[in-house]
């Protein structure tokens, strides 16, 4: 009797210990996120002792080391970030969804076995390598096609980010296409629809929220990408006039300036304020993606 009871106590202890470990791991992720947010907020706020929030958000001139008058306007870089990101998605989304549809509906299992890992490998290319390709291959090609003197343009950045966003878009879109219940497909085919009609009118609409979520996650990836755009887009501070001009994104600006900035100066705090803006942007993009994915899960159950 005694021994059994003892074992029970030990077992309970073990169980609650394991439970606590898992609980802590889960909590840790939340704490880290909140910690980063708090740190950003704490370091960003002092910037606004000298810079008005209005200047920060509405001025398009950023020149903190100017000998004339330091300026802290975010707008040009915000516009550049949005432009490069949207450009990337405009290219990557149609291609990504087409590849996902091909993988889930058309490709033979053998082809899929080869193509899928290759697509996933695409995600493993370091961003600095993609940037290098941008400088040496894609940039000069753009210069030649559009008859420009150089190819360090927003278009260059968009093309490269499109490549980097593709794996995310393809794999999540394909997963959501595969998650469409087979009964949907069978019903469609039974009603006389061919495979194309089934794909376009039944499967894609059913998987739409997942596909949109893949778009949002791809967008999150593109907004946050730093090294590639830093290398490929020329980093001119002017307000973007078009895809064939040099632009500087928010991420590139932080990477360029954080290394040199004297600590605890307005410039230093302002860079953290940019970081905060980026954090908020990617947070909402990812949150939207999550909400949409959750909705789809419930819809299909």
């Amino acid at each position, binding site marked *: 009797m005694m021994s059994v009871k003892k074992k029970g106590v030990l077992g309970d202890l073990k169980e609650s210990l394991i439970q606590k470990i898992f609980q802590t791991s889960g909590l840790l992720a939340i*704490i880290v996120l909140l910690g980063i947010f708090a740190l950003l907020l704490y370091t960003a706020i002092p910037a606004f002792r000298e810079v008005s929030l209005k200047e920060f958000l509405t001025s398009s001139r950023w*020149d903190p080391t100017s000998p004339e008058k330091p300026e802290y306007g975010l707008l040009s870089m915000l516009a550049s970030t949005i432009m490069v990101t949207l450009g990337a998605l405009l290219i990557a989304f149609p291609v990504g969804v087409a590849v996902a549809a091909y993988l889930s509906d058309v490709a033979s299992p053998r082809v899929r076995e080869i193509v899928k890992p290759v697509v996933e490998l695409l995600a493993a290319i370091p961003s600095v390598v993609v940037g290098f390709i941008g400088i040496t291959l894609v940039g000069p090609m753009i210069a030649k096609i559009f008859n420009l003197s*150089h190819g*360090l343009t927003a278009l260059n950045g968009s093309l490269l980010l499109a490549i980097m966003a593709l794996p995310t878009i393809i794999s999540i879109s394909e997963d959501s296409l595969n998650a469409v219940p087979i009964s949907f497909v069978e019903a469609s085919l039974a009603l006389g629809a061919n495979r194309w009609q089934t794909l376009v009118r039944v499967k894609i609409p059913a998987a739409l929220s997942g596909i949109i979520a893949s778009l949002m996650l791809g967008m999150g990836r593109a907004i946050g990408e730093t090294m590639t755009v*830093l290398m490929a887009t020329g980093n001119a501070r*002017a307000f973007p006039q078009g895809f064939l001009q040099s632009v500087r994104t928010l991420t590139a600006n932080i990477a360029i*300036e954080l*290394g*040199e900035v004297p600590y605890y*100066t307005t410039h230093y705090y302002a860079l953290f304020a940019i970081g905060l803006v980026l954090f908020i942007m990617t947070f909402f993009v990812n949150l939207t993606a999550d909400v949409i994915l959750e909705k789809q899960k419930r819809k299909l159950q």
Partner: protein
Amino acid sequence: MKKITALIGLLALLLVASLGLTSPASAQKKMIQIKGSDTMVNLVQILAEEYMAKKPGAAIAVLGGGSGTGITAIINGTCDLANHSREWKPKELDLAYEKGVRPRIFAIAVDALSIIVNEKNPIETLTMAQVGSIFRGEIKNWKVLGGPDQKISLYGRQSNSGTYSFLQEHVLNNKNYSPDVKEMNGNAQIIEAVTQDLSGIGYVGVGYLYDEKGEVRKGLKVLKIKKDDNSPEYSPLDKEAVYSAKYAISRPLYQCTNGKPSAAVADFIRFELSPEGQAIVEKEGFFKIGKDLMEQNEKNLR
């Protein structure tokens, strides 16, 4: 709730521990950490290699990043020796003194800042005022200067660069750069861009103009500079003109320590200033330092 507070405590403990590990203790090791100017990184790297070959047991690591990066590193105590191609800014000195850092500055070489264009560009000479106008964005087309009808494509360094600050102060007359300047990550990238861009113009340290064989890189044209409309033109490739200060945009390249350099660091600086070190400086395309600066260096070493 209790759990969370305990966890935060644990995290704080970890943070403190990790801070303890990365604090100056690691810088105290034998390895001399040098950081800063991109213009100087190759030169100092070669000086360090020669020095290490002569003194077994010496270990020196040289990093780039820009003059501002080096100066910030000295202020924050994350390197032993900073390379910088511009002087300290008053703001940086204030910050250093506030933190108890006492910079000691040594001039180790002289650089002639070179204005480069593509070799196909017909322009040969510019005045200082013209270079200033170009980089301020006031002159936008090569036609104005007698070149082809092409939009000028500007290449420059990032604001952490000493070269960026030097040009802004001495050639742009402390006015803002044009926002259209494409900011490249170092001298080598500017050279790469200008060799490809027919209407490009950029500025680099003189040491970067040469390839391994000691010849000016292909695809580049190094412009001659006039102080003003009436003065004669000089090229940064003309040694005599730089030594006699006829070439208008030359500047000393500096290193600095926090307080009196340690024995190991002082020994390396002495090597750099020795005839042997200065010969390397010249071989790398830069210029030897003059008598006055050398005397100042001696004082600072003591």
